């Protein structure tokens, strides 16, 4: 037979306060005797002479274990069990129902009504100790579970609050980044600008700009930060600041694409985590429509001509930061009235269909060509719709941006001011 300790289940080396047991029994001799036994075992014992009084004491003291007599006046043991199980504060209490006899039918009824265990009044001392210890052990576990559950709940609430704060911060940051993007419309006489941008997360890493450099020149770029999330967005915003027209004019005297890339490449090396940018830069000479452009690993821009087949404006080159001494060479192309130039991030065409096939550059190009007769913004919108249709989802897995500029059909016209 296993040894049953006299001391109530002490945690080794830790002084825990004695467990509190509420003893509810109407018969004074039995109650006094049982109370004395439990007290001798080291417990704090509270006594009540019936269920009604017992309930009051239980609510006040939250005892660790309730030992309840079956037959009592005022409120008997079973009614007491019912009352405890209905009480939200007490319902997980451990109840030992004390009986004068071990009739199975009564025990079954007791269990149904909410007793956890039984204690015969004729029990030996060892049996009493064993049952009390078992009841207290369960009580401790239940309370621990309840505490853990409550802690978990409050942690969750805290986390949700933090998350809401972070989300609000991100929204603020996103609004700021959006404010840096060029306003659609007519940035300069003879040029129409339209764009659509859907970051994959609140904060995107793909950014672009179209800006006046001087009376004759328009500067434009699109950049793509590798990776996702806040870190990528922050790096992008810092490169965007670097690429501002004033900064480039001050540094280089122009928006010469190969020199812009050369400077950006020197200042934005590959990060320790392997993060980098791809960047496409163009400078449009407004009087002639001559566009010089250069790319640093960027998939590039698509020239959609009113009269010729569309063509990609890109060159194979390192992204920014791969090789600090890299040199980038500009290319030149002549834009004619009604020509459209699209800057785009790879996120618009690297969208997988449900079967995993990518939409791809060719299909993107087809969508652009198919929109030649519609307005610039409608063409861009139809590209997004086609990409969404391909992936059969609204949300893009990566930042998706398409920026379009269109040269007015008659540049001497006065439709744009």
């Amino acid at each position, binding site marked *: 037979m296993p040894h049953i300790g006299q001391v109530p289940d002490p945690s080794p080396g830790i002084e825990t306060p004695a467990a509190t047991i509420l003893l509810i029994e109407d018969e004074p001799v039995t109650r006094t005797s049982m109370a004395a036994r439990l007290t001798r075992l080291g417990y704090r014992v509270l006594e009540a002479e019936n269920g009604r009084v017992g309930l009051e004491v239980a609510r006040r003291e939250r005892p660790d274990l309730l030992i309840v007599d079956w037959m009592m006046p005022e409120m008997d043991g079973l009614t007491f069990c019912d009352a405890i199980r209905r009480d939200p504060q007490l319902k997980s209490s451990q109840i030992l129902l004390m009986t004068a006899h071990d009739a199975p039918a009564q025990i079954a009824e007791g269990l149904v009504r909410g007793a956890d265990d039984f204690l015969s009044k004729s029990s030996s001392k060892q049996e009493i100790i064993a049952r009390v210890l078992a009841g207290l052990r369960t009580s401790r576990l239940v309370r621990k579970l309840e505490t853990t559950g409550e802690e978990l709940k409050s942690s969750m609430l805290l986390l949700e609050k933090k998350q809401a704060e972070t989300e609000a911060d991100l929204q603020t940051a996103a609004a700021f980044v959006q404010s840096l993007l060029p306003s659609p419309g007519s940035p300069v006489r003879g040029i129409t600008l339209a764009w659509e941008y859907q970051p994959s997360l609140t904060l995107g890493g793909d950014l672009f700009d179209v800006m006046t450099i001087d009376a004759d020149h328009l500067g434009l770029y699109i950049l793509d930060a590798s990776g996702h999330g806040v870190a990528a967005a922050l790096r992008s915003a810092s490169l965007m600041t670097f690429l501002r027209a004033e900064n480039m004019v001050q540094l280089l005297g122009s928006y010469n694409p190969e020199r812009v890339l050369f400077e950006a490449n020197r200042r934005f090396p*590959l990060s320790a*985590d392997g*993060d980098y940018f791809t960047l496409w830069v163009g400078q449009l000479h407004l009087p002639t429509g001559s566009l010089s452009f250069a790319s640093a690993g960027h998939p*590039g821009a698509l020239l959609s001509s009113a009269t010729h087949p569309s063509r990609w404006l890109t060159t194979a080159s390192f992204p920014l930061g791969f090789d600090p001494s890299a040199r980038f060479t500009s290319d030149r192309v002549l834009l004619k009235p009604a020509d459209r130039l699209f800057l785009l991030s790879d996120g618009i065409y690297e969208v997988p269909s449900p079967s995993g096939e990518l939409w791809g550059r060719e299909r993107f190009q087809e969508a652009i060509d198919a929109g030649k007769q519609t307005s610039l913004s409608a063409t861009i919108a139809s590209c997004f719709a086609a990409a969404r249709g391909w992936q059969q989802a609204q949300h893009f897995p990566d930042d998706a941006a398409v920026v379009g500029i269109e040269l007015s059909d008659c540049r001497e016209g006065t439709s744009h001011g």
Partner: protein
Amino acid sequence: MQIKERIVPQGIILDVVGDLTYAHRAVFKAAVEKAKQAGCRHLIVNLEQVRFVDSAGLGLLVLVSQNFKLQQAQISMLKPQSYVREIMSLANIPKMIPIYEREEDALMARAA
């Protein structure tokens, strides 16, 4: 993405299966780090089973290449699929990391 490692006399071959993308960067980094710890002089990344490499994946390859160069070690790529090859070419990666079509050629490269 899954990575299986094969140790050959000339170096270590990483057989990558799946997409080499931002979401899987930790797995790739861990595999490379393990090879580096093992004193690998030539790391061959087998891309035959890789359908897609995103910008983050590309960055990782370049970073690893730079790290290996600093230690007089080398990284090569094996059999990229056409789309992956296109992405690599656009970023001029072949100028930095040699691409081989046959495992034997990749293995010979270091010895040569």
